[in-house]
């Protein structure tokens, strides 16, 4: 493996005081928000938070571990389907919520073992994860017959599974999560995962991951088993994507094969690449922007949304490789330096 020159950014820097302030301000804003905005906006924001989790899982894996998995939507879909099938069967939601995260992680462990321990090259890994997503979607779509039943739940093929229960309190199944509740839950989890990943990247585990991204052979010579670390990152990212999938099922009370869709997978990549993969906050902003832009395009009725998304993807790969936030950040940094240089000492 050669030195990866694609990433100009270094490892995660320890957060300064203003980062903690920013996180706290964000938390407070999200806390008071439901009292001020209407339900429709709350629903829209909730789904953006949930999808931002999906984007976070990819940007962690790609930006920091250097592994580009197109299969994050596979774990997203598997999470949603696991939760739907288990909670409909069991009638409760607390352990299916956990199982909906653990089952896709198990799947990722098996898949990742074959890919990472086989030491297939990065591009192979990307394509294999893409193919896994494609074939999972096809498999789910082909289960429309009445013979495809898990427990008492029909998989329903193309039509998806309706009536997925909302989250209940473990001790009181009558207390269901309201729209406010879903908003708080998804906002809190997104913030938690963001802060958690940010801190994880400062811990020895994260440092080793970034080291492997920069120069895998050197890390191996230093005595780290890079395969173990990569696999751990892969499984962790799958867990985050699965969490997003479970939340998606809770949010919409519905799962469908579209969760695995290739367009969906492409959108995740677009969120991350537009926001900037070398930061964790970038993909969150990217998710919000692209989702908003996509919805707006849909209402304008100017042709195909996929057409525009494809153009955006090509443009960002060819021209704005770093993504929006890092580009803006560098521009501001440059401006600041100019400004300081122009001032007489």
């Amino acid at each position, binding site marked *: 493996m050669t030195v990866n020159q694609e990433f100009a950014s270094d490892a995660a820097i320890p957060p300064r005081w203003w980062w903690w302030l920013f996180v706290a301000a964000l938390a407070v804003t999200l806390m008071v928000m439901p009292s001020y905005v209407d339900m429709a906006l709350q629903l829209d924001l909730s789904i953006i938070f949930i999808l931002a989790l999906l984007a976070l899982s990819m940007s962690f894996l790609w930006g920091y571990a250097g592994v580009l998995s197109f299969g994050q939507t596979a774990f997203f879909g598997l999470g949603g389907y696991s939760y739907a099938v288990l909670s409909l069967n069991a009638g409760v939601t607390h352990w299916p919520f956990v199982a909906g995260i653990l089952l896709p992680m198990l799947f990722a462990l098996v898949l990742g073992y074959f890919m990472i321990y086989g*030491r297939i090259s990065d*591009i192979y890994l990307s394509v294999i994860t893409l193919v896994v997503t494609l*074939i999972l979607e*096809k498999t789910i779509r082909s289960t429309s017959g009445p013979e495809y039943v898990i427990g008492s739940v029909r998989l329903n093929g193309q039509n998806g599974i309706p009536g997925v229960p909302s989250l209940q309190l473990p001790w009181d199944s009558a207390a269901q999560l309201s729209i406010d509740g879903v908003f708080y839950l998804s906002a809190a989890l997104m913030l938690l995962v963001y802060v958690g990943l940010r801190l994880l990247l400062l811990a020895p585990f994260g440092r080793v991951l970034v080291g492997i991204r920069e120069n895998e052979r050197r890390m191996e010579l230093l005595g780290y088993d890079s395969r173990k670390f990569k696999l751990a990152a892969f499984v962790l990212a799958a867990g985050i994507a699965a969490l997003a999938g479970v939340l998606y099922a809770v949010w919409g009370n519905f799962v469908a094969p579209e969760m695995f869709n290739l367009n969906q997978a492409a959108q995740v990549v677009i969120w991350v690449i537009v926001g900037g993969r070398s930061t964790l906050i970038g993909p969150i902003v990217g998710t919000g922007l692209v989702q908003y832009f996509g919805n707006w395009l849909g209402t304008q009725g100017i042709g195909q949304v996929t057409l525009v998304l494809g*153009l955006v993807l*090509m443009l960002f*790969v060819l021209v704005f490789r770093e993504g929006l936030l890092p580009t803006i950040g560098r521009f501001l940094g440059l401006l600041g330096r100019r400004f300081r240089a122009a001032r007489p000492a």
Partner: protein
Amino acid sequence: MEQIWTGLYLIVFSVAILILISLGLAVIFGMMRVINLAQGEFIMLGAYVCVLASNAGLPLWAAYVAAALLIGLFGVLVERLIIRFLYGRIIDTLLATWGLSLFLVGVVTTLFGPQGRSVSTSFGNIALGGTNISSYNLVLIAIAVAMLAATWALARFTTFGLLVRGTMQDPTVASVLGVNRGLMYMMTFGYGSALAGLAGAVLVPITGAAPTMGVFFVAKAFITVITGGHLPLLGTMGAAGLFGTIDGIVSYVRSSVAGEVSVLIVAIALLRLLPLGITGRLRSGL
């Protein structure tokens, strides 16, 4: 006995389809380690060219030629406008061609609508070992074989082929010896695209043409190329032979989705043993 014939025919047919859809991808991958994620859309464009040409009154064979030529030219254009800037940045190439694939699906849907189109052909059925099979399927198998043979002959007997093989083996040495590497890449990309366009055109009488048809082929094509490794001809033949057999048998016994799933599982297990594909250990060849 009859069942053996039918089974054998099904296997040969699914191997031929795999060769048809993945040879162009394999040629491009073998030459420049670039996976063209828009391969499925190149096939789709080929299918549309074929439909439009034959609706305009051209005979079917002329429509095939038109599809191969036009998509080949389109490939050259794509190489000049996009791929050329991304050599050495494999992941970025993957992303850019993915963007291209979304873009092309969007464009074709806007132009021709989401519904499928087809052409009428005058191929009948013939009896083979007691079962009736469409004689067009035999034409399709013949074209797959011809594509392999033509690619082999091009690489083996022409000066262009010699230069391509040299660039494939060692791009640096080749360019030191005066080979125009950029030109070689451009031509190879064009040739691979032409093969994809031809494949799309040839598939029209069976599948029709629709904007999203690419997705139906790409999964198998990617698996075949990755498992085949860096030698396009040997790799494609080996992987297509293996996966076509599995796919043919499982599809016959269960369903086509089950066939695809089993191909995927075998491919992933195989990559654990041969991470560089079937031809990964071979230094040179085709």
